[in-house]
C-alpha cells in the first residue's frame, strides 16, 4: 500500500483507525482535531494524487503523441482535460499529476530515443486561505502576488531551504475566491517542510486540513481543477 511521507506526522495528530480513509490507495486522515479554516489559512497533504515525470530532448514530442496539451514554454502549466495538470519544468522536463492514467501510459509506452521517464514520489501539499501569502513571505524569496497575475505560471524556487515546485491556483470558499498554492517537494524533505509550514500556519491562526476539507478545496484529478486563468 502507498503511504505518504507525512504518515507518521499525521499519526501523531490522528490516532490509527480514528477517521482514517483510503484516498487513492493511500491511508489519510479524513479530518484533524482543530482543523484550520481553509478560507483563512490551512495546510493539507495531497500526496495521494499520482505523479509522473518525463525528461529528455524527445520528451515534448513524446507527450504530444500521447495527446497531452504540452505547455510551449518552461515554467508554465496547463490543466488536463480529465483533471490533473501538466507542467513544463525546463526546456526538456515535464511533470504530470492526474488520477494515475498518464503515469501508467508513460510506463507502458515503448522505449523512445531521447525520452527518459522520471518516477516521481513527491510530497504534495496544498496551502490555502486569505493569509497564505503571509506563509510564503516567510519561507520564499519570490513575489507570488506578481506570479498569480500571470496565468499558467509556475515557480521552481527554494522554500525554507528546500527546492520546491509551486503552482498558484484559486479555490472557492462560499462566494469568495481564495488563493490556493500547490507545493511539491522531494519526499525526503517532506516531513521537514510540512512541520515548518504547519508551524507558521498555526502561528498565524490556521491549521491542518484532512481529506474531507481538501476535497471541497481542490477536487481530486478525476474532477476539474480550476486554473488561475487560461494558460
Amino acid at each position: 500500500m502507498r503511504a505518504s511521507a507525512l504518515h507518521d506526522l499525521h499519526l501523531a495528530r490522528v490516532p490509527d483507525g480514528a477517521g482514517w480513509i483510503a484516498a487513492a490507495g493511500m491511508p489519510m486522515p479524513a479530518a484533524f482535531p482543530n482543523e484550520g479554516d481553509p478560507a483563512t489559512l490551512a495546510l493539507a497533504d495531497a500526496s495521494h494524487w499520482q505523479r509522473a515525470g518525463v525528461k529528455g530532448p524527445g520528451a515534448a514530442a513524446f507527450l504530444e503523441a500521447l495527446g497531452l496539451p504540452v505547455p510551449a514554454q518552461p515554467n508554465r502549466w496547463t490543466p488536463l482535460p480529465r483533471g490533473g495538470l501538466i507542467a513544463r519544468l525546463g526546456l526538456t522536463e515535464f511533470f504530470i499529476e492526474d488520477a494515475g492514467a498518464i503515469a501508467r501510459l508513460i510506463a507502458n509506452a515503448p522505449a523512445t530515443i531521447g525520452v527518459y521517464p522520471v518516477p516521481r514520489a513527491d510530497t504534495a501539499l496544498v496551502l490555502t486561505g486569505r493569509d497564505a501569502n503571509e506563509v510564503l513571505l516567510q519561507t520564499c524569496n519570490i513575489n507570488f502576488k506578481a506570479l498569480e497575475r500571470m496565468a499558467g505560471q509556475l515557480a521552481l524556487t527554494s522554500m525554507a531551504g528546500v527546492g520546491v515546485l509551486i503552482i498558484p491556483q484559486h479555490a472557492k470558499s462560499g462566494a469568495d475566491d481564495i488563493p490556493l498554492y500547490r507545493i511539491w517537494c522531494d519526499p525526503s524533505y517532506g516531513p521537514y517542510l510540512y512541520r515548518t509550514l504547519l508551524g507558521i500556519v498555526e502561528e498565524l491562526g490556521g491549521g491542518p486540513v484532512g481529506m474531507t476539507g481538501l476535497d471541497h478545496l481542490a477536487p481530486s484529478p478525476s474532477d476539474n481543477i480550476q486554473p488561475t486563468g487560461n494558460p
Partner: protein
Amino acid sequence: MKLMPCPVNGLRPVSEFFYWGEVRPMPDPDRCDDAAWADYVFNRNGAPGIKKEWWYHTPSGTWFIAERDTIRDEVLRTWLHASPEAEQQ
C-alpha cells in the same frame, strides 16, 4: 539580498544558486604539450576581471553561464550553454 538573473527562471536570490567555477576550455590532451595540460589541470586564474563562470539554479536544475565582473561582483549577463547566445561567444 544579492540577485542573480537565471536565463530560464528570471531574477532570483543568489542563495538559490551554486557556483561551479570559471568556464575553462579544455585543450586536446592528445595534441597539447605537458606544460599546457598541467596548466589546465592544476592552475586557476585568480586575477579579478570580467569572467565567464558556470552557475547552477538548484531548485530547477538549470546550468548556465554568467559573465561576471569579479572586481565589482556584478553580473553582466547570463545565458544557457546550448542557446543561440552561446553560439555567438
